[in-house]
């Protein structure tokens, strides 16, 4: 549990970060809260000769809420998300999901940017951000661009972000209606056996639109348009829920690990998603 040697940098602005990334290319990596990266380094699964700490970089923090437009700086910690009353009012699913991530100690360090940039299928924020149709802002040598969360994940630890880019913020438009994040895990501090993010809007007694994403059930987060569509224009009754679950299960591809065999994971995914839909509908 001792990392290989590395050089440590602590730049104060984005330009400084990008300059270092350009200089060292693949040998450099930014560090946010370090709670995914440092364990990998200690296990020597990641050898990073040049480690760039983002803690002192200006302009990466803060949560701003402008009507329904929400912007979360990359260095916002999961604890910050939980503590932010305005955010809890505007998009309560963020607090609900953040409270199910790791434990309080990890949440004081782990950041939103790190969680979504990491690309680990076990991370909870990517699925949630896909559900919310969030946009990720990336800044690199060629300037700024945004990539939709739904287009960001390519494979485990492979994302649309290039080696020289830094993710600076996550933004999305809060939707009316109800949302829920349900997660089954073995214990506090564990990644999901199965987790589901659901957001839906209600018109009278029917569901107008729904967005459904799932976590740790494939090598990337799984946003399932078919599952959402199965709920739209229905009263979210048992048959509609079943159709949505069937659609979502067709999109996931879990693998066996210590959390259990594939058959179990698929079953639990269905149960967890059913619960998330019911809970979101009750709140809509």
């Amino acid at each position, binding site marked *: 549990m001792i990392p290989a040697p590395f050089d440590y940098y602590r730049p104060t602005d984005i330009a400084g970060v990008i300059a270092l990334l350009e200089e060292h290319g693949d040998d450099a990596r930014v560090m946010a809260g370090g709670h995914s990266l440092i364990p990998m380094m200690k296990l020597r699964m990641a050898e990073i000769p040049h480690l760039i700490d983002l803690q002192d970089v200006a302009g990466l923090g803060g949560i701003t809420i402008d009507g329904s437009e929400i912007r979360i700086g990359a260095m916002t910690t999961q604890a910050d998300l939980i503590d932010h009353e305005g955010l809890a009012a505007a998009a309560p699913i963020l607090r609900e999901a953040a409270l199910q991530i790791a434990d309080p100690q990890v949440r004081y360090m782990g950041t939103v940017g790190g969680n979504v940039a990491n690309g680990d299928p076990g991370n909870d924020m990517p699925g949630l951000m896909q559900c919310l149709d969030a946009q990720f802002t990336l800044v690199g040598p060629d300037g700024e661009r945004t990539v939709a969360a739904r287009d960001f994940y390519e494979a485990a630890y492979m994302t649309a972000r290039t080696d020289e880019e830094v993710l600076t913020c996550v933004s999305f438009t809060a939707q009316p209606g109800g949302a829920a994040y349900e997660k089954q895990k073995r214990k506090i501090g564990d990644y999901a056996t199965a987790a589901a993010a659901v957001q839906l809007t209600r018109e009278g007694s029917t569901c107008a639109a729904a967005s459904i994403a799932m976590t740790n059930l494939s090598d990337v987060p799984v946003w399932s348009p078919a599952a959402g569509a199965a709920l739209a224009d229905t009263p979210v009754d048992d048959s509609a829920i079943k159709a949505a679950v069937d659609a979502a299960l067709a999109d996931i591809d879990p693998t066996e690990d210590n959390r*259990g065999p594939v058959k179990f994971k698929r079953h*639990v995914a269905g149960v967890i998603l059913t619960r998330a839909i019911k809970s979101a509908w009750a709140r809509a």
Partner: protein
Amino acid sequence: MKDEVESRDDRVANLKGLGSARKRVEDVRFTQGKGNYVDDIKLPGMLHGDFVRSPYAHARVKSINIDAAMALDGVVAVLTAKDLEPLSLHWMPTLAGDKQMVLADGKVLFQGQEVAFVVARDRYVAADAVELVEVDYEELPVLTDPFEAMKSDTVLREDLEDGADGAHGPRRHHNHIFLWEEGDKAATEEVIDSAEVVVEEMVYYHRTHPCPLETCGAVASMDKVNGKLTLYGTFQAPHVVRTVASLLSGIEEHNIRVVSPDIGGGFGNKVGVYPGYVCSIVASIVTGLPVKWVEDRMENLMATAFARDYWMQGKISATKEGKITGLHCHVTADHGAFDACADPTKYPAGFFHICTGSYDIPVAYVGVDGVYTNKAPGGVAYRCSFRVTEAAYFIERMIEVLAMELNMDAAELRRINFIRKEQFPYQSALGWEYDSGDYHTAWDKALTSVGYDDLRREQAERVEAFKRGETRKLMGIGLSFFTEIVGAGPVKNCDILGMGMFDSCEIRIHPTGSAIARLGTISQGQGHATTFAQILATETGIPADSITIEEGDTDTAPYGLGTYGSRSTPVAGAATALAGRKIRAKAQMIAAYLLEVHDDDVEFDVDRFVLKGAPERFKTMKEIAYAAYNQAIPGIEPGLEAVSYYDPPNMTYPFGAYVCVMDVDVDTGTTDIRQFYALDDCGTRINPMVIEGQVHGGLTEALAIAMGQEIAYDDLGNCKTGTLMDFFIPTAWETPNYVTDHTETPSPHHPIGAKGVGESPNVGGVPAFSNAVHDAFRAFGLRQAHMPHDHWRIWQIANDLGLHD
């Protein structure tokens, strides 16, 4: 001046003696981060060691190239088996009569096995150098299943002569270690063959690991000037380590000082001797500098001693009315690559033959086959006396299965088979003499406290509701009644590497009436500094707050066999009481002299000797202590000291009744423990608060083991559970509330009647949690499902029973 006269009650309270809920004195330093653990020890010039470990579970080591590692700046030495061989230290004896490689000698037998030891000036350089050691392996077939191993042509232990006896008799296969038997096999089989009711079941107690908060480590320091070796380490038995180190190294025992500083939990993991200890010593001898080795969490989980891994094939017979008539058990014990169990020499399966439990079973037999596989060695007593938790789990599962077969309530089945109060001391069919017990009283108290009948009614209603489709949660009531055997043990039949399992206490009373006592044991969190002072306070009349308890330094403490198997209170605690009585006997003579009366005219009263019939004439212990050092008393030596070495006449037999009420979600396999009630009878209760703490801790470890904790391997022998992400350690969140209770049946042979309690909750807890899971599915016909009961395995039970259809 009324308040000048202390009442007798005040004096008793002042002592904080037996029965007082005295706060733990050691917690002041632990809670302030002021403990002194092995890794806190820093000596001038100290070097750091780290291991190259095998990535393979079974492979030939064709070559080891250390050149690149040696070339790294800061590397001082890289040791391999070749370097240890001239010292005959490339192998070492295990506590179980086997031998174990210190560093890979030609082959490796489990993943994580020590291959080379890198010594460097800095911990980071050592880790970098480990990566630079080039080892050429040739993979060999891997055996992870003990049943397969007993059939396979693959020879794991090529060092053992084919066909030659092992330490415990004949070996019938090259991967066989021993067959150990107890009881009357023929008579048992006869009873079972002709019985009215027989059930047979395979009960597996999976492989797990003690996983103490502090991992294992050592700092060795050889002083070449005075020839003295000092060894700091995570040792549950420091005196035995000194003797072994002397025998292995040839350094005279007086030139070795072993120190166990604060230990962050042991649970059996720190009883044995590990390659890291040996390599640090050799490296210090070679370099002339102190060498530290501290393993990390993954090394601890993968390579240091595991626990359990017992396949227990049981048969139990009974009359139609449920009176048990016989018990038969055959165990296939997976010991891994070397037999490194920590058991008393004569008992290769520990005290597993306590497996008749709390029941009056007329005839019984156990046979245990030890088997080698390509897994880490161990088989230690993880928070239990040697193999006692396996035994308790086995019998408590067999009882449940029998109750199902008889269609009887499992609480009632236990009640009609308990050993009755008047049968104590009770001779068990497998050879033990149970010292004392009152099982029916404890059971009735437990069942009444939890409202047992109402719980069963609620459970029956839940099953009906489930069948009607109104709920997806079943309810389990987990019962467990356990009897432990602890306090090893009588020297006539218990030894570790030839050292009798007595223990000791040495007391010095200072002139001003305070004291220091040293014991042969070593606390790893049990609170010895608190409780042993309480024993002494009651025995000597010196307040516990004025007594320092010291353990763990072999240069100062009297010889003892250490702390494991709940032996500290039964053995060292007895020595402490008896040493205290020696102090008191001398104090009585001094008091009589000071009062100018005959010795028999004074009697002990709390903290003083009083003149019989005239209690206003007295001498306090404080006055007596002072007199012992400043007066010439005819016929009495100056000073006030005593030593006692205690050889227990028998083990002690704590017992308890636990009930766990659990809701089980059949769709997700998740559980919710609604209620957990634990009644413990540990004989005389020294400190109720310490007991409660021990019970909470032990139950939480039992929860972990039953509900998720395991050391698992894939087919290639890769350890799949080498980090705390996968190895389950419950947090406060997963831990239920516990209700504790007690009855008090003193041990008749122990000086203060105490029996030991630190391990009871683990022994009784595991069957309580596991039985709750099984009981939830009893209405649907579940007989046996193996632990750990993590989510997917519970889901699998429901799936197999068709509950998802």
